[in-house]
């Protein structure tokens, strides 16, 4: 027996109604075959029927009417080829064949331990505590004064508030889209938002000193500015909302774009400063108590010979460029 599926889409969620008796009426009145609650739908809005050639639609709403593939339908019967997209007032709907294939099942992650970072309460709590400790240590290290514990806790408070705020926002979005708060996962991801850039900052400093160069910290800070936020958002959507990777990537890039744009603006400012004149000497100023470095200590004689030679070359190049610009 022939069947069609009438799909309504409300706030991104699909609802399916199977029609096996024709003609079938659709509307808000309770004696319809399919009853809709959307207020812009008429009491008797649409009729789906079957003839020897296939299916026909008949608009019976004189109020907001029906749009078939974005064209307003007249009152007479219109033959259709499945599937078709409809608008009943403000309601989005589709008419599909019952043979339409469904999307593959999303397999929930079965992995245990570390990979359940965002759903296992133990891990989330540890992540949160580790992040707080890290921030506390950072604030503590940068204050070389005798202060009591409350002072450092006070320094942490703004970060803590922002972290909880982000948790609420992410949880709220989850609630809207999946009807679950997922507050633990949200707290986990909010912790990572703070932990990862801080760790990258420390790594950048370590490698800067190791190689006596500012390049590592530049790379790490660019990662922190441009990659961390979208990557974490995507990770969250894939893990928690079970969104497929590509849509998750798209959404993550979209959501993080204002922040990326802000950093990009900063980056462009910096680039234009570097390419122009600067009265400041650009040199690697990092110092580290570990003193782990790739370069050995040279004798003064060797150092000055190297430096004199290198600088002579670099300055000569700059003078040459300057002369070329003026010519």
């Amino acid at each position: 027996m022939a069947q069609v599926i009438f799909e309504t889409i409300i706030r991104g969620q699909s609802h399916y109604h199977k029609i096996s008796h024709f003609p079938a009426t659709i509307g808000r009145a309770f004696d319809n075959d399919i009853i809709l609650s959307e207020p812009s739908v008429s009491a008797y809005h649409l009729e789906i029927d079957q003839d020897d050639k296939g299916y026909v639609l008949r608009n019976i709403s004189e109020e907001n009417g029906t749009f078939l593939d974005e064209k307003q339908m007249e009152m007479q019967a219109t033959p259709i080829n499945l599937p078709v997209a409809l608008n009943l007032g403000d309601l989005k709907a589709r008419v599909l064949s019952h043979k339409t294939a469904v999307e593959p099942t999303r397999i929930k992650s079965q992995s245990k331990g570390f990979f359940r970072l965002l759903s296992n309460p133990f891990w989330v709590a540890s992540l949160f505590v580790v992040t707080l400790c890290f921030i506390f240590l950072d604030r503590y290290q940068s204050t070389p004064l005798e202060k009591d514990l409350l002072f450092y806790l006070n320094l942490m408070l703004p970060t803590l508030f922002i972290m909880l705020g982000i948790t609420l926002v992410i949880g709220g979005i989850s609630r809207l889209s999946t009807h679950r708060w997922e507050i633990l996962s949200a707290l986990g991801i909010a912790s990572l938002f703070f932990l990862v850039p801080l760790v990258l900052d420390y790594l950048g400093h370590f490698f800067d000193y190791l190689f006596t160069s500012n390049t590592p910290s530049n790379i790490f800070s660019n990662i922190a500015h441009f990659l961390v936020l979208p990557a974490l958002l995507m990770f969250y959507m894939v893990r928690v909302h079970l969104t497929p990777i590509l849509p998750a990537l798209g959404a993550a890039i979209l959501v993080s774009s204002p922040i990326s744009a802000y950093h990009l603006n900063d980056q462009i400012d910096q680039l234009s400063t570097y390419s122009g004149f600067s009265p400041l000497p650009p040199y690697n100023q990092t110092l580290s108590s570990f003193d782990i470095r790739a370069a050995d200590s040279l004798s003064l004689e060797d150092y000055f010979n190297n430096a004199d030679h290198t600088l002579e070359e670099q300055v000569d190049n700059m003078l040459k460029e300057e002369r070329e610009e003026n010519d």
Partner: protein
Amino acid sequence: MLIRLFIATLFFTYHASVLADTNTASLYADAEQSVYQIRVINKETGKKSSIGSGFIVSKDNILATNYHVVSQYVNNPDVYVLEYLSNTKETGKLELLDLDIVHDLAVVKASKRMGKPLEIDVIPEKGARLFSLGNPLDLGFSIVAGTNNGIMKQDEDGNVLFSGSLNAGMSGGPTLNEAGKVIGINVATAGNNISFLVPADYLKIVLKRLEENNFSPIKDRFSHSSSQLRTSSSKMLTKLASNNWGQAAIGRFIVPAELDKSVRCWDASRRPKKDDLFRSFYTRCSNEDDIYLSDHLSMGSINYEYLWLDSKKLNPARFYRRYERLNSSALDSRAGKRDVTNFACHTGFTRVAEQNFKTTLCRRDYLKYKHLSDILFTTALVGHDKKGFIFNMDITGTEAKAATHLFQKMLEAFKWRK
């Protein structure tokens, strides 16, 4: 030099107290015809942009003045012209003949007869009466009496300390002895009757050079000045390198103290706070001298500083946070894009006094003043958990090699106290 800038500007409060003296009156009457106002005029507006004084020193139309009086014209000959104004309100064009940028002297030539040249004499004994002439604040020609207080030992330029009241606009005017002969050229003031004169001997050298060249003007002003600046700087650095420096202790280090009589050191340590967890000591030394090149450019400064930092209570990571923040060095200079290149730097690790240091040498070159560089050196002790030491030094307007030679010599004199 800061005090020099006082005289280059015209916005200086005027407190002249000219002593009435019969001698002064006759001196003034004799010299009056030989002293002129020198003015830099903007070609477009025809208005004066800066003024100073000048006096006839040779033939009947060769005038001497300060370089800083004519510097605007020297740096922008397309925008400005040089003029004189006599005390009979007569004006005329002037041509630049020669410069001694190091001693702030310039010699210019008028196209017509100007008057009788003043004779040059040696500096009299300390305490002798001197008379300074010029046109202070554009108010009219004046004579100021004062006392010779000798050549300043502290100042490498060997300027004469004149206890009289020089004022803006008198720059470039002559200072006469009681015989009415020029012994110095007015150059700067620090206010309160502390004024400075360039010994006329330096003017003699310029005049001799001009005579040999038949009073033909110098061709390339900047290369002429560059070579003077190079000579002066290398003379200075050679002297510093060969001096017997005193020793100073800072933290666990023994370091060179004042490199020369012209260098003064000051303590600039941070006042300790009650809740500090570290100690820091800071000494700054400077030759307190700059050679004036233009309103935003000067050379010849030598600055160095030592900073010691230690702690018993801070953990190493916390100590190094603080230490690292202090490890940044920059040059106090207003040189811009049209004056110098960017800095190029070379960082490495060195052994000094059996300790390891993270060391950086930076250099930038002047664009118009060829073969002159600003050199910045900075080095920080590494490898000690709770001890930090930073030595910064910068030299402006020097040859790079001479500067690094001095740095190396100084570092070799460092000693670590066990």
